[in-house]
């Protein structure tokens, strides 16, 4: 291409405009990709600069050239990514706000729920479905327009911030500059940030569950929730009906959970413990090498598979068996769910118990044999009592697993709250109720949905306590024989 010198500037600005038009209104993924590519370029430039400054004698540099490159790339990348992620988290709510405030008055004066539904319609149309409502279509037009403007501004801001950051870093590069220390400090911060995420998750869980629960307890007193014996969260259709707010006494749910967990534990504890004893004390190494992984497969099968099995195979079989011997078994009996759940948690009991039985020093066994005990006597009277704390820890972990298990009970246990201890009847559990209360519901202000969070809080606290106790016991016990 031949361009006369005088025209060069004009052509350049023209090209720049075209470039700006093609680049700026772009999607976030493209932008992120572009930023990454530019950061790689930045790395290359900075690295080359550092080598050029010392004319190739790298030993004169404070750090290896790589670090100068990384330093500049980092300062290019981080500010840009920060802008994008900020935009990402706030864009949607700001756009929604802008659109809602621009809506016709009769729509704006609707309740918050209807507005939410309206906005859902709008977003569905944006994502490709069709709609007849003119208001929706108008809002969609505005949404598209606003979001493309927003994308443009975001792309511009991101690029500017990145370029400024990258340029500042680039200009600081000098032979005596301690690039490695800077990069390593950043790496260290990044690592700390990543490991703090676990704490953030916990805080997130506690806050989200607690705040919604508090809103729930504003409407329903805590005492009624914890000690009430009637649970029917379905609010009545007409407000003049009795119990229009529903009843939120969670005792039947706690009892149901307890019943199913007890059934599960009464399967898992004996089977798991005896298997662990057999595997660690009697089995030949070959048998152990085959049987142990096979047992652990039980823990790897997705719970939805167990639920399917409990609901479609075991429950009908138990019902059939019951009707043959003259018992009336519910088709969603606690027994089916509990049995299957028990089988699921066998590996939790057996593998922990196995660990702890193996940790009991051989000298204790030898002592028992020397006194004339048979192997089973040694196990029952010496090894198991010595391993007991660990075994109890394992059982507690299994119990917390059973209480928190969701899919099996959702698929195989009942939905109606039933205050009973008869394993042949249908009971409902805390987790089942959380799922049924929340699935398919999009509003978050009714007592019904908030109740799910209160149940979640109870579940979280109970399992947390069980976990902490068992982790404490297990840790204490490990120290004992080490």
């Amino acid at each position, binding site marked *: 291409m031949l361009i006369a010198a005088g025209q060069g500037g004009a052509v350049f600005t023209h090209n720049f405009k075209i470039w700006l038009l093609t680049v700026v209104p772009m999607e976030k993924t493209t932008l992120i990709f572009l930023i990454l590519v530019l950061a790689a370029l930045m790395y290359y430039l900075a690295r080359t600069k550092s080598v050029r400054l010392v004319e190739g004698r790298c030993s004169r540099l404070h750090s290896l050239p790589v670090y100068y490159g990384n330093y500049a790339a980092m300062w290019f990348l981080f500010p840009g990514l920060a802008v994008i992620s900020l935009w990402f*988290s706030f864009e949607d709510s700001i756009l*929604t706000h802008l659109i809602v405030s621009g809506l016709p008055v009769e729509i704006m004066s609707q309740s918050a729920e209807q507005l939410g539904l309206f906005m859902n319609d709008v977003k569905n149309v944006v*994502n490709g479905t069709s709609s007849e409502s003119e208001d929706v279509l108008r809002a969609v037009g505005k949404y598209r327009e606003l979001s493309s403007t927003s994308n443009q501004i975001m792309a511009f801001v991101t690029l500017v911030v990145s370029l400024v950051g990258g340029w500042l870093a680039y200009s600081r590069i000098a032979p005596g500059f301690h690039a*490695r220390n800077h990069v390593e400090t950043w790496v*260290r911060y990044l*690592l*700390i940030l*990543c*490991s703090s*995420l*676990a704490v953030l998750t*916990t805080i*997130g*869980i506690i806050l*989200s*569950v607690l*705040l*919604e629960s508090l809103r729930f307890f504003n409407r329903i007193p805590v005492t009624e929730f914890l000690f009430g014996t009637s649970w029917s969260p379905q609010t009545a259709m007409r407000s003049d009906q009795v119990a229009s707010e529903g009843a939120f006494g969670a005792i039947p749910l706690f009892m149901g959970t307890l019943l199913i967990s007890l059934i599960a534990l009464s399967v898992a504890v*004996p*089977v798991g413990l*005896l*298997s662990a004893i*057999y595997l660690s004390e*009697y089995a030949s190494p070959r048998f152990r090498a085959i*049987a142990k992984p*096979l047992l652990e497969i*039980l823990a*790897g*099968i*997705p*719970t*939805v*598979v*167990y639920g*399917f*099995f409990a609901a*479609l195979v075991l429950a009908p079989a138990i019902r059939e068996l019951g009707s043959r011997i003259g018992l009336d078994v519910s088709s969603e009996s606690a027994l089916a769910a509990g049995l299957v759940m028990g*089988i699921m948690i*066998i590996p939790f009991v057996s593998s922990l118990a196995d660990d702890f039985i193996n940790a009991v020093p051989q000298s204790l066994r030898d002592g028992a044999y020397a006194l004339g005990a048979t192997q*089973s*006597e040694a196990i*029952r009277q010496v090894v198991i009592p010595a391993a007991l704390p660990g075994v109890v820890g394992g059982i507690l972990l299994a119990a917390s*697993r059973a209480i*928190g*298990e*969701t*899919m099996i009970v*959702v698929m195989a246990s009942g939905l109606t709250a039933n205050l009973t201890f008869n394993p042949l009847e249908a009971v409902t559990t805390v*987790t089942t109720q*959380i*799922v049924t209360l*929340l*699935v*398919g519901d*999009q509003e978050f202000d009714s007592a019904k949905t908030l109740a*799910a969070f209160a149940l979640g809080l109870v579940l*979280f606290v109970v*399992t947390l306590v069980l*976990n902490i106790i068992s*982790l404490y016991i297990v840790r204490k016990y490990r120290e004992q024989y080490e």
Partner: protein
Amino acid sequence: MNDSTSDTGGKSITTLEKVKASLGKRRAAELRFQAIGLVSIMAALLFLVVLLGSIVGNALPAFTSTYIGLDVYLDPEQIDPEAKRDSASLAGGNYDACIKAALARSFPDVKDRSQKRALNALTSSSAPYQIRDMVLENPGLIGQTRRFWLLADDTVDQVLKGSIKRSTPESERKIKDHQLDWIDQLSSQRRIKQGFNVTFFSSGDSREPESAGILGALSGSFLTLLVTISLSLPIGMAAAIYLEEFAPKNGWTDFIEVNINNLAAVPSIVFGLLGLAVFINFMGITRSSPLVGGLILTLMTMPVIIIAGRSALKSVPPSVRDAALGVGASPIQAVFHHVFPLAMPGMLTGAIIGLSRALGESAPLLMIGMVAFIVDVPEGIRDPATVLPVQIYLWADSPERAFVERTSAAILVLLAFLVCMNGLAVYLRKKYERRW
């Protein structure tokens, strides 16, 4: 030790005699105890066999489906009355009428309206789309008569597979006697065949069992797992490295450690509540999208990856670090250039096991709306989607026998993926395991 004697009823018995007398009993107890242990292992393994056996047994029929061969006249009047031949008008053609006409030609003696409806019910409601897709690909077919192998309704399929028994009284059957006669006529004309169920692997969910497939759920699972991997793997590894290699022993790191151990044992449904409150209500990410699902699964998988990663780092001997530091590496260089690469296989093994758990997870995803009935195959992480385990849950709720088969088949596919992932983990461990 002296032989102690005890005096009982004037007769003296030595301890040795007592022991000898009880020996038989004790030996029997020993054998009993051993047998009980063996029985309990066998019981657990037997259950595993029954579980897998019943699922495989249920699943196998789902891999074939029934097709009915019909000579369909692609009537230009019905398909494209205005003869425009562009894809929009072809897509809107009335292919159903062509099929009905073909059926009427095959069974000319069926006149009654309700009988006709029963006859038309033999083919799947998705059969018109089958013809439509072929016509869209090749508009030259219009005006010709062609033999199409159309998907049969699931009741026909079930009759041929024997799940609906002909011996049950007509009133309790989903399929009527005259429909059975038609099926017999068709099969005597060799116009019914059973073939591999392609639909199951090539289409999304459907209300009709015969046209329901797992492709939508599979790609939803894939996208969700993609989000999970790309977030949980780097973050988990970074956290493991910090906690194991750099963290000073103080209250804060102890707190983080307790936190991580607890998070690994928090019920998965609580993560669903977190996702609902934070990602959907607070941050406003689209419901039922793989993005939200992936974020939740990331939070669930991270503790597992961190715990596995730390034990992998711990197994790298300190001499490696010392040697690196000794030749002048900075602590970060020592870790990233020497310790981390050595611990990598172990970390990956743990990560794969955590991710395979995430793949089978469904409870938290129910909370965030991945249970919606979604026909389209998701193409991006913000499209509404469902995942394989949730699809299994949804189908398990459907009463049709054909859905029971398809649920089992979907479970088999899910288990196959899990076996592959765990196999990969075992392979990695075997191949790169080093003893120092």
